[in-house]
């Protein structure tokens, strides 16, 4: 252990809080990349509109808790519990993703167009979605009122006692947070918990249910699965819905943390999501999860332990390059026949 700490220059790093940072950043990346990876594994296309769905999910969630004032570019009050925004964003994101599929992918799929065309049509619709969001929600930043989101770091509130079993957990958490200087707000904890639940849920669907079997069959071969009686169109629709719902959830959690809603939100995640699914394994669900934490770990390491924080992205891309070179299926991906 000492050797490792020396080697990675960890002596100078406060590594407990940084590991928490890795976990929550990684959860967010993974959640975003899961939907990306799902579409890639089922359809074999990169859906570059995923970040636009992410952004729209966040706006839909905001609309759900804030009401119609968001169309005037304002959110003066949140009357309902702010967490309602997450299911709303998931449903909104899911529906929008289905629309994206119908408009940008379906006609090309019908024509058996090359994957390259589908990549470009996804870019086209992403540009449109951002432009529409600018028209609908305005170009200036929207935020929820300050008191809507619990933003304080966890601490030990007054009036707790060890006798109350429920309080013990809060005291323990507060003590840890204070002891190790961890930056952990309720929203961040929420991101970690919700992401884990959704990841497990998706894993369950893909591996344990008939639907998941159907998806894997379609991913293997569209023709074979239609011969086997799988309703391919339905599978595509459900895959897009799930992917959009994950994007919506990620978008909502992301914006709950930052409390900044902008039409350009998420554009910086398009490429990051790509690195995540490549490092983990193109088209592998577990790979996307691993990749998310890996990318977060590299970024945190570069910033926390070296003087070259600005090169974090370059290092991620360089690694990504190496992975593609020597193990194109990624860390957890299965060797695939020529895809795409």
């Amino acid at each position, binding site marked *: 252990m000492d050797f490792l700490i020396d080697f990675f220059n960890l002596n100078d790093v406060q590594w407990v809080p940084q590991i928490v940072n890795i976990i929550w950043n990684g959860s967010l990346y993974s959640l975003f990349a899961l939907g990306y990876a799902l579409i890639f594994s089922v359809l074999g296309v990169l859906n570059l509109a995923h970040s636009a769905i992410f952004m729209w999910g966040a706006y839909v969630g905001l609309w759900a808790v804030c009401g119609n004032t968001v169309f005037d570019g304002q959110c003066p009050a949140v009357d309902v519990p702010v967490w309602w925004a997450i299911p709303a964003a998931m449903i909104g994101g899911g529906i929008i993703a289905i629309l994206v599929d119908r408009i940008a992918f379906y006609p090309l799929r019908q024509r058996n167009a090359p994957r390259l065309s589908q990549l470009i049509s996804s870019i086209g619709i992403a540009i449109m979605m951002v432009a529409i969001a600018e028209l609908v929600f305005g170009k200036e930043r929207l935020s929820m009122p300050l008191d809507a989101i619990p933003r304080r*770091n966890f601490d030990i509130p007054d009036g707790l006692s060890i006798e109350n079993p429920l309080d013990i957990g809060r005291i323990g958490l507060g003590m840890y947070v204070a002891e190790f200087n961890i930056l952990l707000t309720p929203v961040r904890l929420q991101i970690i918990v919700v992401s884990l639940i959704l990841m497990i849920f998706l894993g369950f669907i893909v591996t344990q249910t008939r639907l998941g079997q159907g998806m894997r069959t379609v991913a293997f071969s569209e023709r074979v699965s239609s011969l086997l009686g799988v309703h391919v169109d339905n599978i595509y629709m459900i895959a897009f819905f799930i992917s959009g719902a994950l994007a919506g959830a990620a978008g909502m959690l992301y914006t709950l943390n930052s409390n900044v809603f902008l039409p350009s939100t998420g554009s910086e995640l398009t490429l990051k999501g790509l690195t995540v699914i490549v490092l983990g394994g193109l088209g592998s669900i577990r790979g996307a999860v691993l990749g998310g934490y890996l990318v977060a770990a590299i970024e945190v390491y570069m910033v926390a332990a070296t003087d070259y924080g600005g090169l974090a992205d370059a290092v991620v891309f360089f690694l990504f390059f190496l992975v593609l070179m020597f193990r194109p299926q990624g860390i957890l991906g299965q060797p695939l026949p020529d895809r795409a």
Partner: protein
Amino acid sequence: MKQRFKIVVCLLLIATLVLPLSAMAQDGGDEEETPRMGFWEECADPANLSGEIPIGVVFGLTGSIAQYGEPQANGVRLAEQEINESGYLGEEATVTFVYEDGGSDRETSIAAFEKLINEGVVAIIGPTLSSQAFGADPLAADAGIPVMGVSNTAAGITTMTGDPELDQFIFRDSLPESGVIPGTVATAVEILGIEDVAILYGNDDDFTASGYEVFVDALEEAGVEILLEETFSRGDVDFSVQLTKIIEQDPDALVVSALIAEAVQIVTQARQAGYDGPIIGGNGFNSPALFTDAGEDANGVIVGAAWNVGNPNELSEAFVEKYTEAYGNPPDQFATQSYVGAWLMATAVRCADSADPADIRDALASIQDFPSPLGLFSFDEDRNPVHDPVVQIVDDGAFAVFDESYANYFD
């Protein structure tokens, strides 16, 4: 679901029908006794002007840049309305600002400048970013049209071509970072006795990166040790990694060069992480969003800026009121500087009493002590702005003048 969709479609159609009507329904509001902008006395009422005088306005109105470009355009719109309603250019003439989207890249701004120059505007305001200014301003200078940046703070904007004949057409009314930051740092060091700091800056943006360099120079000048420097990228929303590292070093102050979107996040997360010392920011911090989005976390932020919403200046207060009434939210520094820029251009037209670009340039260059929300405004010989920057501290949700009384604020 289908029913809902139909309703939405109907509503949208109705909205398209109603919108133009509601736009027409805006009324001017009644005039109140407010201090007047402009050189009403200094320059005689123009006699030779007539018709619409076109002045180009190039701001980034689409994409992520729009959150800065839109308030800028609003500032000019407000000025346009005031100038024309008050008959500033005489009975016969009005000023018409021609708005073009400069996008967020250089090419779009250049194209916008060329279009405006071809259309025969007499002057241009913009573009939003310094990087765009370096690309586009020389075109205006080549055509002999005065151009004024209202948000370009990078070093060397007004001497960008290196040719005095061309440079003389390039103005700006936005104080460069080097006009604001050294004073801020010196004041903060003097009052708070800061010995070491940590710097956090955006390294992929010319505004924040040049702000960082000015900060470093100013800190060295003041004899302050820089413990560590951390970076982030435009659009980042999480700074916990950098902040964790910074707080561990326990600096006396945190120096941040960021635009407002990131600044709010940095301030909030620094406070969440338990840092309660001073945070020193530059022009980028200067937006009402600092209070509205960071709330009490913003307390203890020291901002040096060309202007801010709490400026104790009659014209500034009147402007804040009018702007808030017109657009629903208080103006930020971008809106104020563009508002002043539009007034300066109109003043140059009035004082030149001519719609000839060369005359307007000469009139613009000779503007001295123009009363504005920014204070008494003048151009120096390099056509950079001269007015007093403000060093203020956020105290209890409002800007307050940062003076000796805050020496023990952080204890």
